[in-house]
């Protein structure tokens, strides 16, 4: 499954990083403490977080994650969107909370 298909299946709102919508999804990681994410997330992961500042793009980029889902209706900062467009990291906005998103990803086989 790629990011575009994931986005469609869960009815998420893509707000940045269109260039990366064809990235392949491989597993998921949920967390808001950036050093834990750096230590434990893997390449190709969907990252679910409620952090929305621009450093999340650097983390996703360094780990080559598939995309970031910003959960719980948190508004994403303008400079985050800009950075995500530049790096081609899709940011998907969701009103659902982190737990519900994890369950839905699981039911999709991720």
């Amino acid at each position, binding site marked *: 499954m790629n990011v575009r298909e994931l986005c469609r299946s869960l009815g998420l709102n893509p707000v940045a990083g269109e260039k990366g919508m064809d990235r392949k999804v491989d597993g998921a990681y949920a967390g808001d403490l*950036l050093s*834990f994410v*750096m230590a434990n997330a893997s390449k190709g992961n969907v990252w679910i*977080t409620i952090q929305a500042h621009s*450093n999340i793009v*650097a983390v996703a980029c*360094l780990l080559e994650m598939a995309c970031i889902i910003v959960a719980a209706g948190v508004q994403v900062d303008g400079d985050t969107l800009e950075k995500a467009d530049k790096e081609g990291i899709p940011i998907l906005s969701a009103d659902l909370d982190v737990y519900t998103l994890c369950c839905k990803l699981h039911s999709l086989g991720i």
Partner: protein
Amino acid sequence: MSQKDMVSLNYRVNAEDFAKAGDASSNTKKVLKKLGIPSDITRRAAVVTYEAEMNLIIHSNGGEIIVNIDTTKIQIIARDFGPGIPDIDKAMQKGYSTASDHVREMGFGAGMGLPNMKRCSDEFEIESKKGEGTTVTSIIHIPD
């Protein structure tokens, strides 16, 4: 890269410059990829430079990151202009952090930075003098 070739990168990192946070580590990673360094080694170097960069931004009065790459190793040096680490043993404990509440709310200051750096390094050293500054050196070997 031939035997005698060495690539040297140098980044100035300013205190509290969250807008540029991740630039030094992202650029280092791009260079390592271009040089054809194996992806697991590149990932470890990316973690070390990222954490070093965040430490300089969050805790220091500013400093620099120097990355030296040759055929056998990647050496990452993070050097700052103070204030120095009062207790290195404590700073190395997982979960120990002196970060402010504001920084923690952003997801930094989990007390995992230095432990993450050590875990990803083959050789790791911290030198710190209160009032003067801190130098953290990490070496990651590149297998043949």
